[in-house]
């Protein structure tokens, strides 16, 4: 905790310190850096400009010296060649001038021979000017020449200003004499350049002069990077500021100087004459220029380190002090965590920490109370849990037993499954022979069908015979009456030939009728599947009704055929089989009416056309078909007449004929009075 708190305090204090001690100084230093740089450049530029002017003025002064000397009449009128007294007087004057202006030498030179005519001082060395130089300087129109030479024996550069002395009487402009002023740059110019410069440029400030060939013109304060001392007019200055000045540029720059040391420099290009230019660099070491900033930076670093150390110590101290009550509470908490709820934090003083300790102790008291209550509740709960546990144990025991029973059942199920598997196997065996058995059964059923059909035929035949008998009974009675009448008349002798012919004819007509009856019946009961034909529905229905009428009349059943005589409804199929279907339906209706002893039994047959289909409905008033029976009446072998009366094949065959052979439908439904069977073709 102390560590964490100390870190936090340290960070906060450091942040404040950084802002206060480094942020502001950073910008201050940055601003100072810029300010110092500008100030130094300003000073260097000002010095460079003033030194450039000084050099120009110095050269101008030399020109004025030369002009003044060259203006001597004795120089231009040739007396110096011929008049020793003039030479002496002018020599003394020249020496005075030379001394005043600190020149090394003043010479009058014969431009034709190069010989020195007059020199001051008298013991000065002869001119170092080469004959070529003298010839060039003596050319007409070349008023002035300036050149630099290496001083003999002293290793310094010498400035030579050569001026033509032309006679006013000269016709060709050729000079009478050449005036040469010689001075050492090292002793004459350099001290002037450096005068009072230390105060402006500091200890490392320096003014460096060089010509356009990069040659140093004066001595410098430091050796070159290779350790060699600078030799004027021999050593070269390859530093960038110098090269810029040589190239005609002027400005300020932060660069390396001839020593390869970083400096702030102002460089200038100085046109000494149309023929000669110099370069000048006024520079100051970077380290000196920014020394105050360096000190400032070091001071800030030292202060910063001290501040950081103090901050850390202060943070630790504050943290230790501030966290003391907290640490006491932590210690108490640890004691409590071992289970000792009687531990309490000592209350010291009356500060917030004391309030915190009091609150902490109250919290502990409360905690202790809660702990006791909780303990009590835990005990109670434990007892309850034990009870529940006991019950659960019993339940588990019961469940174990149930599981055992289930296990036994499972065993039994497994056995059953085994048996079922066995049965399945047997079933599979049976299935394998099922096809054979189905074939056998189908054959058997076919045989039964054939038998039923045969039975139906036999029943129909019985009906046929019954009908024939019924049809024939009256004709036979009539025949018997005719015969008995003939016999009586014959016996009475009253039988005439006419009467006998008439009676015989009547009998023959009756016989003819009876024969026709047989043909009719046979026609109905002979299958005509090979003859699909289009037939009129109304006559076919009427003919079928005619066949069954005797049977219906015998049971007092009234029939009524309803049909629209305006239209002949024709259908395609088997007319005889259709008639048989109708007969079956009518017989079934008769049987129901008879069985249920309906008081006024009626059968209504209606032939009609609905939506392009031929419709024949047979409706009775026999009370209808039981609802549970209705779905099964077309099933084969289904009958409600009992085994002695019905075969259960009539309606099945009728449905087969109508729906499979003729493409129609045969349906049944109950009406309010009875049942209705409906044929649609």
């Amino acid at each position, binding site marked *: 905790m102390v560590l964490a708190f100390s870190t936090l305090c340290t960070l906060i204090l450091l942040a404040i310190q950084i802002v206060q001690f480094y942020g502001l100084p950073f910008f201050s230093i940055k601003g100072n850096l810029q300010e110092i*740089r*500008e100030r130094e*450049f*300003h000073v260097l530029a000002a010095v460079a400009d003033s030194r450039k002017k000084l050099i120009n003025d110095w050269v101008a002064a030399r020109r004025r010296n030369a002009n003044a000397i060259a203006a001597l009449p004795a120089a231009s009128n040739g007396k110096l060649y011929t008049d020793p007294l003039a030479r002496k007087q002018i020599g003394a004057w020249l020496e005075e001038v030379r001394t005043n202006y600190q020149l090394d030498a003043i010479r009058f030179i014969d431009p034709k021979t190069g010989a020195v005519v007059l020199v001051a001082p008298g013991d000065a060395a002869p001119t170092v000017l080469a004959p070529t130089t003298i010839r060039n300087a003596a050319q*007409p*129109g070349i008023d002035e020449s300036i050149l630099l030479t290496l001083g003999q024996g002293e290793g310094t550069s010498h400035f030579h200003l050569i001026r033509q002395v032309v006679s006013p009487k000269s016709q060709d*402009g050729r000079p009478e004499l050449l005036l040469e002023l010689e001075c050492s740059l090292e002793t004459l110019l350099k001290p002037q350049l450096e005068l009072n410069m230390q105060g402006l440029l500091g200890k490392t400030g320096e003014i460096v002069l060089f010509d*356009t*060939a990069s040659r140093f013109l004066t001595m410098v304060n430091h050796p070159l990077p290779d350790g060699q001392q600078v030799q004027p007019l021999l050593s070269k200055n390859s530093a*960038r500021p110098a090269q*810029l000045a*040589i*190239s*005609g*540029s*002027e*400005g*300020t*720059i932060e660069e390396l100087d001839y020593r390869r040391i970083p400096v702030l420099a102002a460089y200038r*290009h100085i*046109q000494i*004459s*149309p*023929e*000669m*230019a110099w370069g000048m660099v006024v520079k100051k070491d970077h380290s000196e220029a920014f020394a105050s900033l360096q000190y400032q930076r070091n001071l800030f670093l030292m202060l910063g380190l001290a501040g950081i150390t103090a901050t850390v110590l202060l943070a630790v101290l504050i943290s230790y002090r501030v966290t003391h009550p907290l640490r006491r509470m932590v210690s108490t908490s640890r004691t409590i965590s071992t289970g000792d709820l009687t531990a309490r934090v000592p209350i010291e003083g009356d500060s917030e920490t004391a309030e915190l300790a009091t609150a902490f102790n109250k919290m502990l008291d409360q905690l202790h109370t809660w702990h006791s209550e909780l303990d009590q509740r835990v005990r109670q709960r434990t007892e309850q849990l034990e009870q529940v546990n006991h019950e659960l144990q019993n339940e588990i025991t019961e469940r174990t037993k149930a599981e055992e029973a289930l296990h036994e059942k499972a065993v039994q199920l497994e056995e059953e499954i085994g048996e079922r598997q066995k049965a399945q196997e047997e079933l599979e065996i049976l299935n394998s022979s099922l096809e054979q058995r189905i074939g056998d059964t189908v054959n058997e059923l076919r045989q039964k069908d054939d038998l039923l059909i045969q039975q139906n035929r036999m029943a129909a035949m019985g009906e046929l015979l019954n009908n024939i008998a019924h049809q024939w009974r009256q004709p036979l009675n009539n025949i018997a009456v005719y015969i008995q009448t003939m016999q009586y008349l014959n016996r009475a002798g009253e039988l005439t030939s006419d009467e006998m012919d008439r009676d015989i004819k009547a009998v023959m007509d009756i016989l003819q009728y009876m024969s026709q009856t047989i043909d009719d019946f046979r026609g109905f009961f002979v299958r005509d599947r090979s003859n699909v034909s289009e037939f009129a529905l109304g006559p076919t229905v009427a003919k079928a009704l005619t066949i069954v009428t005797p049977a219906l009349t015998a049971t007092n059943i009234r029939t009524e055929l309803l049909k629209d005589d305006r239209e002949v409804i024709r259908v395609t199929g088997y007319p005889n089989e259709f008639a048989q279907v109708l007969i079956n339906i009518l017989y079934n209706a008769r049987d129901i009416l008879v069985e249920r002893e309906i008081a006024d039994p009626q059968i209504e047959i209606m032939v009609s056309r609905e939506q392009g289909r031929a419709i024949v409905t047979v409706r009775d008033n026999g009370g209808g078909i039981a609802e549970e029976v209705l779905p099964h009446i077309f099933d084969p072998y289904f009958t409600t007449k009992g085994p002695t009366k019905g075969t259960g094949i009539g309606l099945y065959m009728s449905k087969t004929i109508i729906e499979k052979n003729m493409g129609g439908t045969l349906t049944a439904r109950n009406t309010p009075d009875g049942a209705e069977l409906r044929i649609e073709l």
Partner: protein
Amino acid sequence: MVRSLHTIYALLTASLLILPVYAHAAQPATRPAQELVIAYQPFASPAGVIMEVVRRDRLLKQNLVRQGLTLRMTPVNAGGDAIKAFKRGSITMTTLGDMPALELAATMPVIYCAQLKQNYAMVVGAKGLLAKDLKGKRIGNVFASSGHFALLKVLHSGGLAEKDVTLVTMPVNQMPEALQKGTIDAFAAWEPTPSIVISNAPDRFAAIGRQSSSSYLVASRTFAEQHPEAMRQVAAALVRAMTWLKHDTHLRKAANWNIATISSFAGTAPHNRPEDIIRVSANDLAAIRYSPRIAPLLRTSGNPPLEDELEFLKGVGKIGKEVQWELIQQSFSHDIVEQVIRSAPKYELKRYTYE
């Protein structure tokens, strides 16, 4: 009688003296005069004031007439305009700064017959601004001019290149106002504009860097070869003008002529005051010692300023890479001015006849 004889003798003598002059003067009337057109830049110092004096040199005009030439002098805005006119053949001679003079010498046969200045082109900006501070700044410039070269040298000294700044091309006479209004941060130009801007607001503006710059009177080599005497007459006029300008009152008069020409040429009065022009021109004339002689230094090998400028022009594509320094060297003609100086009486170098 004697008096009459003296009078007759005097008249005869005068006739003998005057007639040749009339004969010379009448000669051009009988044949069509060729026009010698000299272009000059009124915005340049000291060429502006020098050429104003030459323009008014009646003696020059008379002497040229004797050579079958009439003189016409025309002001141009900058060296680039003069080069275009020169290439069109509409001018024969022109004053040019070193950069355009090099460009012309590299592309046409010309001679540098006189030197008109040896001063500095400058990059001028807010006081305290250093070369390295120019990064990202807008700088007024005349492309491929002495100012442009100075700018590149200054940028180079600050570790920058041309791509680091935004060059704003504009005429040199608009630069001071643009700098004061802040539409540019600095400008690069030749004298007298930089010195005048600095001297007028020394607390606001200063030279960020300077570059040695020279200017010349350049003539068609063909013309110079066909009319050597006319060339010498022009050189003599230059010598006369520069000598005459040593006197302050003369310089003031020439400065006023210069301002009048600038006003007429630019359509507005210049920002430069006569005092500004006088001060800058005096310094510039002193730098060449009031003489149009071409400094031998300028035409020797290994001369950094001009050779550097030549390389610069090659670099910016103004001059073909194949142009050698020798070609430029051959364009300098030291002799014309020298011949005039050596024959001072003949060329009447101290006779000032300014209209």
